């Protein structure tokens, strides 16, 4: 994977390594300047081994997630690239007819034959070219193949005619074991079949198979079985429309001598394309593509017949596509992993606050004997760096293991479509390591500075810190003291102004910040930054910037106002308002706030983080009400009451710890439930019976054996015609040739184009999401299509831009200004062009197909208009509607049709079966995604572990007292367990609640893309699983410290200080 987020991985590596180097240099400077602090810090590490392990686990999680995401990208990139190299072999480019078109880019119209002798002319022209070492004409046709002896057939097989004399330039055909096949030496009437076809037909060397071309059988003897590649007819292509377009269609192949196939097809002296091999092997040959394309362009300009030939650098495109696909996955995993990384950052912060709490009296002593706050912070930074370097190393290694696990699951999920082989690169690991070290280091710096602030006396005597209360009350009762304390800063103001404003404005800004922070805390600065973002977002109509700014501004205001107003009131009302902002639909919030447009997937992360932050604030400042309820419950079970009393008391008093732990659980569960809810609702919307558009079976005709009328073809066969209610026909053209653009645009995009016949229009059950103004009903729209006017309906996907940047950049996208959210829209025109004939037509779009009819993709024209523009279709699909009363099984009926027309090579499939396969695939993928995101739960669990272990140490004396006054061991253990479970439950339920509320707002409120959801489905089993798993794991995590607490020796604990 060479790029991510549009940046080169090498650039990213250099940047993150530089940041890491700066971090390490900071620690090195500390070590050089103050060896005592350096040694003290490092000697702290082995003091508590169990705690050190827990810290390492906590610190490694961010790196683990980053490494797992990057390695997953590498794995996919590598696997797809390997598959590309495998299937293309030494073929680097193909040359094919592009027609007389002025369209931009390369268009391949493979159906138009070209002069095979062009290969000879090019060979002569390129004889001295160092970048190209092979040119070969190739003829292909699609035909059904049958092995009568085994009773097996394949409806669509690519028969490839190869020039045996030129095969050595392409590395010859080879068996799966790599042995060379003597293609030239095969006896007449022999063929080489791909290994996949051999498996499908149960045929081996020496067996006889039959292919049917235009209905005529042609017997061939299998001369050898080759590894599937483009030369043996094996290829993968995306079908352009219909349910089959959901997945990749694998075509199986037969390689035959070129002249034999030319003779069979009547295309003497012609080829479908010319394969070009670059100098070098399979992989390094692709690196010469640019030079080869340049040479080919020059050569084509010089040879006769070269002017209508286009160059398709298919290997380079495929390799780039693999990288894009890998990057898309990495981006997706990283974005989803951001929730866990955010929780991880919180965990790191909490770990260091805990360490500081544990060493408070030591730190107080250190301060008393002359160490500065800076020294304490430096000590923590040094210690943290040591943990960080080790933890990131373990995290990167564990991330690779997780990615390999993901690869294994993906491999099973994708089945035969793509073989996934685990693969990691040092570059990605280095990026993950450096990024993990840097993120952790920066968090450690923040935590270290925060931890170093302590009152010396209070720290030595282990009394509660007073500064938080003082800060809150500062303006009310000790303003004079603060003014006095700030006097030195005020006195420096003129000097600072004079010296720094002129020379170093930034330094002055820092000073000004310090000054205001002294008097007013962080609130005003955060408010100003937030307002700046919000204004920027308003000006640029950018929802991300506005929402981030507004959330920060309100946070800053709350921090400021709590100095004057009751903290509970400030946090509850401020956080409540912000939750309303995030949860209410935009059309409601827009009545009081500026309309800042729609957000992208980044909004999921921002909304998640802020909703969790604000809900946690509300919980923590109103926890007494919540735990009061738990206490009431406890009263009903008197034996539990002592434990409940303790369990609810501690979280209430440690708002910071409990709040951070709740937030960690909450954010991860929020992400998990959001993904589960959104994916479930999409599945419910897109992959239901409605998706089939009222049809039961899709029959795809073979181009070599065209079928005009399926009903007629089936007449007289064993297929029960009485079971058929209707047959509709949709013609299409291959996607590379489907050129579409908006009037006024220069470039053409590609989008599936279909021509539907009257029967299809009459019998399909296709609801429209919205229709053009002037049409009173969906029927009126279909009526207009039936009448053969130049009008069309289009599916909703045409209105979606690609959010993650991993899709086809040449895909057609409908005009931005068309709003399909309402009942009607302004009809708009599109231009269609036939790449073959060059003919351009303007069509008016009058309807948008409902998103629930997900098997319909593309533009649907009246068949007459389609035929007018494109002439002969590249592909014809027939749709069969069965009589419900016939009670036949769709899959069996499809098999009957395919069997009856096997010599025509039709492929018949049950549409519902395809939809169910897609459901299974989608379900597996999202389960995998949730599994990855579930890693974040370990952050919450580690936090609970840290808090619980720390609590046992901190409360040792209190535990002793409780045991002395009569708390049984079980009660002590139960109070620890309950405390953790209450914290985890609050976090989990908050996450679930926020996620359901936001997803309901997005889905039911119509704010989720262009799909029109009619219902909101709650994935109850998944949510239940998340809740149970999180709480069970939380209980397990607390079990050891709880047991430890219960077995504390009483007399020893009472002496403990």
């Amino acid at each position, binding site marked *: 994977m060479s790029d991510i987020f549009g940046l080169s991985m090498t650039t990213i590596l250099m940047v993150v390594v530089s940041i890491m180097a700066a971090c390490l240099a900071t620690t090195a400077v500390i070590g050089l300047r103050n060896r005592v602090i350096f040694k003290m810090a490092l000697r702290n590490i082995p003091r508590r081994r169990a705690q050190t392990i827990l810290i390492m686990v906590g610190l490694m999680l961010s790196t683990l997630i980053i490494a797992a995401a990057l390695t997953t990208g590498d794995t996919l990139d590598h696997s797809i690239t390997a598959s590309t190299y495998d299937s293309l072999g030494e073929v680097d480019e193909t040359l094919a007819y592009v027609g007389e078109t002025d369209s931009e880019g390369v268009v391949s119209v493979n159906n138009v034959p070209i002069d095979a002798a062009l290969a000879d002319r090019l060979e002569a022209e390129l004889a001295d070219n160092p970048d190209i070492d092979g040119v070969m004409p190739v003829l292909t046709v699609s035909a059904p193949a049958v092995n009568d002896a085994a009773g097996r057939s394949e409806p669509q097989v690519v028969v490839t005619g190869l020039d045996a004399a030129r095969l050595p330039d392409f590395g010859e055909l080879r068996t799966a074991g790599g042995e060379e096949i003597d293609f030239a030496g095969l006896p007449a009437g022999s063929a080489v079949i791909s290994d996949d076809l051999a498996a499908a037909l149960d045929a081996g060397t020496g067996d006889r198979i039959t292919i049917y071309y235009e209905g005529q059988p042609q017997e061939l003897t299998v001369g050898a079985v080759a590894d599937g590649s483009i030369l043996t007819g094996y290829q993968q292509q995306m079908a352009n429309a219909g349910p089959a377009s959901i997945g990749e269609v694998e075509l199986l192949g037969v390689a035959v001598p070129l002249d034999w196939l030319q003779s069979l097809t009547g295309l003497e002296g012609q080829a479908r394309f010319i394969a070009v091999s670059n100098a070098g092997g399979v992989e390094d040959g692709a690196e010469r593509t640019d030079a080869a394309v340049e040479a080919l362009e020059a050569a084509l300009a010089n040879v006769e017949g070269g002017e209508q030939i286009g160059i398709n650098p298919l290997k380079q495109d495929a390799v780039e596509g693999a990288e894009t696909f890998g990057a898309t996955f990495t981006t997706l995993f990283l974005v989803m992993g951001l929730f866990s990384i955010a929780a991880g950052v919180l965990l790191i912060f909490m770990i260091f606050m805990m360490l500081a709490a544990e060493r408070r009296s030591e730190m107080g002593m250190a301060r008393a004997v002359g160490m500065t706050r800076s020294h304490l912070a430096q000590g923590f930074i040094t210690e943290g760096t040591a943990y960080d370097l080790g933890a990131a190393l373990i995290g990167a290694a564990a991330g690779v293991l997780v990615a390999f696990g993901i690869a294994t699951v993906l491999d099973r999920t994708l089945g035969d479509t793509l073989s996934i082989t685990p693969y990691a690169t040092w570059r990605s690991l280095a990026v993950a390591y450096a990024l993990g070290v840097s993120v952790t280091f920066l968090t450690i710096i923040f935590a270290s500075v925060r931890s170093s602030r302590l009152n010396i006396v209070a720290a030595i005597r282990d009394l*509660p810190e007073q500064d938080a209360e003082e800060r809150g009350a500062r303006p009310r009762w000790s303003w004079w003291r603060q003014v006095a304390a700030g006097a030195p800063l005020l006195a420096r103001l003129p000097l600072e102004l004079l010296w720094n404003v002129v020379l170093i404005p930034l330094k002055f800004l820092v000073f000004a910040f310090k000054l205001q922070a002294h008097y007013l805390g962080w609130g005003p600065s955060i408010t100003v930054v937030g307002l700046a973002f919000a204004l920027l977002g308003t000006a640029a109509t950018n929802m991300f910037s506005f929402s981030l700014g507004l959330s920060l501004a309100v946070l800053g205001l709350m921090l400021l106002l709590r100095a004057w107003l009751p903290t509970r009131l400030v946090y509850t009302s401020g956080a409540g308002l912000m939750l309303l902002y995030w949860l209410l639909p935009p059309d409601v919030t827009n009545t009081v706030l500026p309309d800042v447009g729609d957000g992208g997937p980044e909004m999921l992360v921002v909304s998640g983080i802020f909703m969790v932050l604000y809900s946690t604030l509300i919980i923590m400042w109103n926890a007494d009400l919540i735990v009061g309820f738990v206490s009431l419950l406890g*009263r009903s079970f*008197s*034996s539990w*009451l*002592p434990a409940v*009393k*303790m369990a609810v*008391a*501690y979280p*209430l*008093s*440690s708002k910071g710890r409990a709040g951070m732990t709740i937030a960690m659980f909450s954010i991860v569960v929020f992400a998990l439930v959001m993904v589960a809810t959104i994916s479930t609702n999409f599945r419910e919307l897109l992959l239901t019976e409605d998706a089939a558009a009222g049809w039961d079976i899709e029959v795809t005709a073979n181009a070599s054996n065209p079928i005009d009328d399926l009903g007629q073809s089936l007449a007289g066969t064993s297929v029960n015609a009485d079971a058929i209610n209707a047959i509709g026909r949709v013609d299409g053209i291959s996607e590379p040739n489907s050129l579409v653009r908006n009037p006024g645009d220069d470039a053409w995009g590609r989008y599936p184009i279909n021509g539907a016949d009257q029967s299809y229009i009459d019998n399909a059950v296709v609801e429209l999401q919205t229709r053009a103004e002037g049409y009173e009903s969906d029927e009126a729209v279909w009526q207009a299509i039936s009448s053969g006017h130049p009008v069309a309906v289009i599916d909703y996907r045409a209105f979606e831009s690609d959010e993650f940047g991993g899709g086809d950049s040449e895909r057609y996208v409908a005009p931005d200004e068309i709003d399909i959210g309402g009942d009607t829209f302004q009809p708009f025109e599109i231009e269609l062009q036939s790449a073959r004939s060059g003919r351009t037509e303007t069509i008016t779009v009058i309807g948008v197909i409902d998103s629930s009819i997900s098997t319909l993709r593309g533009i649907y024209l009246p068949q007459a208009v389609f035929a007018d523009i494109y002439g002969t279709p590249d592909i014809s699909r027939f749709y069969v509607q069965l009589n419900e009363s016939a009670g036949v099984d769709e899959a069996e009926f499809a098999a009957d049709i395919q069997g009856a027309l096997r010599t025509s090579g039709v492929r018949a499939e049950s549409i519902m079966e395809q939809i169910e396969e897609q459901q299974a695939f989608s379900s597996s993928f999202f389960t995998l995604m949730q599994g990855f995101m579930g890693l974040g739960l370990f952050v919450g669990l580690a936090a609970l572990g840290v808090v619980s272990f720390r609590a046992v140490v901190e409360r040792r*004396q*209190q535990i*002793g*007292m*409780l*045991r*002395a*006054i*009569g*708390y*049984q*061991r079980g*009660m002590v253990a139960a109070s620890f367990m309950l405390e953790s479970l209450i914290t985890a439950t609050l976090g989990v339920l908050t996450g679930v609640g926020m996620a359901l509320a936001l997803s309901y707002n997005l889905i039911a409120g119509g704010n989720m893309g262009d799909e029109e959801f009619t219902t909101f489905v709650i994935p109850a089993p998944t949510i239940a699983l998340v809740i149970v798993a999180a709480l069970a794991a939380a209980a397990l995590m607390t079990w050891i410290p709880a047991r430890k607490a219960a077995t504390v*020796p*009483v*007399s020893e604990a*009472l*002496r403990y*200080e």
Partner: protein
Amino acid sequence: MTAQLLTQTETTNRRAAVKDLIISANDVVKTYRTGAVTVNALRGVDLDVARGEMIAIMGPSGCGKTTLLNSLAGLDTIDSGRVLIDGQDLAGLSDAERTRYRAQRMGFVFQFYNLLPVLSAVENVELPLVVSKTLPKEARERAHAMLERVGLGRWADHRPAELSGGQRQRVTIARALVNDPAIVWADEPTGDLDSETADEIMDLMIELNRTHRQTFVIVTHDRRIGEMTDRIVRMKDGQIVTSDDRPAAREASKAAAAE
């Protein structure tokens, strides 16, 4: 050896004289082992305490005062010997039974109060009642009454951090007495207090001892505190070296408390 023999003689005499014993310890041995170091914390201690008696255990640091208190109260196990509390051998009880016994029959006062910082004064006081499965309403009422009794009625809803040292120790005493225990064990109850507050706390304990006839065993190194009790038991190197009855002091204290 002489001291030990003296002590044993005194104890035997006392045992013969006092019939209503609530604490009876005989040849109690407790040894701590930390790595290669062995500390003989108690070396064959005999001690009898009569019901309603208030005794002080005194001695230099490390002489075994607290260990003796913990061993007698069942907070710690002993290596050999026997301890009977109201005729009950605590060593023969399981941990759960011993814990239940403590909850119902004993109260504890510690030097550093050992209050739960996350609970208010009244919640701290009601803890032993909660453990004893007293109904929540009744527990709260009794805790409030006990706080009134120690003069902290107005401070019931304050947390320990909001109270002075003396107030905290009063809360601890209220907690120790709220379940009406037979014995109150106090380990350096005034050790963290100034002398004026220490006197107040001792006066309070003496008054409660007088009115409720509860037995108080107080570990202290403060001679002034010891002199306020009925008897001073002195320890040295894990053994009881003297046991001085102080009936006059007790009467004086009672009189002072009555005033």
